[in-house]
């Protein structure tokens, strides 16, 4: 892409997050749960990258490893030019205000023994010298921003509805003027009518404050609404990473196709003719993923090659990356997001 293109704010390269399995009395290391196994993607400044996939595919782990709430096994996470994965605790603390998180369960993400003012004020107390009235003023400003009544400042989280709690969580995330926010299924625990409010709030804030989101969700319609580009994850790896419209119009990876065929159609006549792709079998255990393509055990188009060779995530048309042997990549000369170099970097989990 030419230089006029938006700047990359987040660059994730070959991120792996393995959780050790120990067994026996001696707690010997018996293997790893490969929750995230070599994921690479970029997030451009001001965009929303949707991250979708079924439960247990590693979406949330990616989000948490990105903010280094988990220590990644390997790989790099560069946010605004700094490799988060290798920073010392002190430098990490200094860079924390740039990246924040909105959590899935608004009930669990707010300390039940702190007032709203204390919750929203906590990041301010940690990172700014704001005291007393100045802090209170900032807290009120944040409450205004997310549409909470200032009079609620002294109440405790249990007195709020789910949507209001999520607004408190968003206000806390906004307190330090972050540039990048990981939204970890921020709407999954909410009522449908409240979901729309929260998503609209997130979009509003993005427009006003120029935020960049990683929007993790399993709600495909909601991702379609909010995301600019969408990454489809399966078993710890990215199956397809495409601009939203292209992906929803014509998913290229067989898993993405199956996943998107599950989205209900609001129009009854279209809905009756919708063809769902039902996958056979279960997701393999992330402790013991299949040898070749990790989707080969369930893929309707699996060929012998799929069981042996892991397909790299390659750019197939400008801006679209697919990890499948049967989606032919564009030639290196096509020269878009970086050609062969990008494909090189986007390889998944091969160099184990």
């Amino acid at each position, binding site marked *: 892409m030419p230089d006029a293109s938006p700047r990359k704010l987040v660059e994730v390269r070959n991120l792996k997050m393995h959780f050790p399995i120990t067994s026996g009395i001696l707690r010997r290391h018996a293997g790893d749960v490969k929750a995230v196994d070599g994921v690479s993607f970029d997030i451009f400044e001001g965009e929303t990258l949707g991250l979708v996939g079924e439960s247990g595919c590693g979406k949330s782990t990616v989000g*948490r490893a990105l*903010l280094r*709430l988990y220590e990644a096994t390997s790989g790099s996470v560069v946010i605004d030019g700094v490799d988060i994965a290798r920073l010392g605790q002190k430098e*990490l*603390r*200094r860079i*924390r*205000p740039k*990246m*924040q*998180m909105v*959590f*899935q*369960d608004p009930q*669990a*993400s*707010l*300390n*039940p*023994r*702190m*007032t709203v*003012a*204390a919750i929203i004020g*906590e*990041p301010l107390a*940690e*990172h700014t010298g704001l005291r007393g009235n100045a802090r*209170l003023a900032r807290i*009120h400003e944040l409450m205004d921003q997310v549409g909470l*009544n*200032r*009079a609620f*400042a*002294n109440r*405790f989280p*249990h007195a709020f509805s789910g949507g209001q709690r999520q607004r408190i*969580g968003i206000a*806390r995330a906004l307190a*330090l003027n972050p540039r990048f926010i990981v939204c970890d299924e921020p709407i999954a625990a909410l009522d449908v009518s409240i979901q729309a409010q929260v998503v609209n709030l997130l979009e509003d804030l993005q427009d006003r404050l120029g935020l960049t989101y990683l929007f993790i969700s399993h709600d495909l319609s909601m991702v379609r609404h909010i995301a600019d580009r969408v990454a489809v994850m399966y078993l710890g790896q990215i199956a397809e990473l495409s601009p939203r419209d292209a992906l929803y119009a014509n998913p290229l990876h067989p898993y993405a196709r199956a996943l998107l065929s599950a989205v209900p159609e609001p129009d009854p006549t279209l809905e009756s003719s919708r063809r769902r792709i039902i996958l056979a079998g279960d997701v393999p255990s992330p402790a013991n993923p299949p040898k070749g393509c990790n989707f080969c055990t369930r893929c309707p188009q699996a060929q012998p090659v799929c069981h042996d060779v892991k397909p790299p995530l390659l750019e197939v048309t400008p801006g679209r990356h697919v990890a499948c042997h049967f989606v032919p990549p564009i030639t290196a000369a096509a020269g878009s997001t970086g050609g062969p170099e990008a494909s090189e970097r986007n390889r998944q989990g091969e160099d184990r």
Partner: protein
Amino acid sequence: MTDAPTAPAPRPRSQARAIWDQFRTHKGALFGLIVLCLLVLFVVIGPLIWQPEKLRVAEALKVRNLGPSWRFPLGTDQLGRDMLYRMMQAGKVSLAVGFIAMMIAIFVGTTIGVLAGYFRRLDGPLMRLTDMFLALPLIPLLLVLVMLFRDRIAQVLGPETGAFVLIVFAIGITSWMQAARIVRGEVLALREREYVLAARSIGAAPRRIILRHILPNVISPVMVAATLGVAEAIITESVLSFLGLGFPPDFPTWGRLLYDGLQYMQLYPERVLWPGLAISLTVLAVNYIGDGLRDALDPRIRGR
């Protein structure tokens, strides 16, 4: 909401005020607090008001084992000593031992529990230490402790203060294990809560996370352990005194009075009744206060 949007938002209300307001609604807790205050007044102010007459030995022998009268409101014991005065003296020591030993136990237990629960690396060693303490037979351990150190501490602090310090320390140091286990379990669960994760994503130091997010949320089990601890400490002290290893024999504590009265129980049951009643009242009052405090400290219950 009735106030106009332009109205200034109220200042954060003081937590202490809200806690007290909730505490007051708990009848049992209020009753417990009153009883405990009366007991404390009884043992602290009482000796200032009620001065027993100074009797010579011959006179004292004449007034042995008396029942209640205006001269001796609670009667006298087998040596002709005024029971009311002894109850006051005894209560001072018993209450002090109970509360200070409980505080030591809770402090040590909570510290070890939080460290073991929060820092995975410390979990193994600290919990094995706890197991070790639990496996030690308590009474023999206390006996050995007292035997070894009583004289040395008595040399430094005098026999009575020395015995007090030693007993409080000995009881505190042998009764923190339950609290440590309970707190560790709670902390293990709390550490994975999303609000702790949120605090970490802000970059809060572990010390801050523990003080701000973990400790306030383990307060309920700690409170229960603490209220039970007071009773246990008072009883343990009386056991020690009974075995002759606590305070010197002429130094009254409620437990000691109870055991002294035991021999005469059939003839003078009130001799056992008064100290027993005092211990029970203290324990009951502390339990109710703990109950009320636990509720008052929980904002989910508060204001309901």
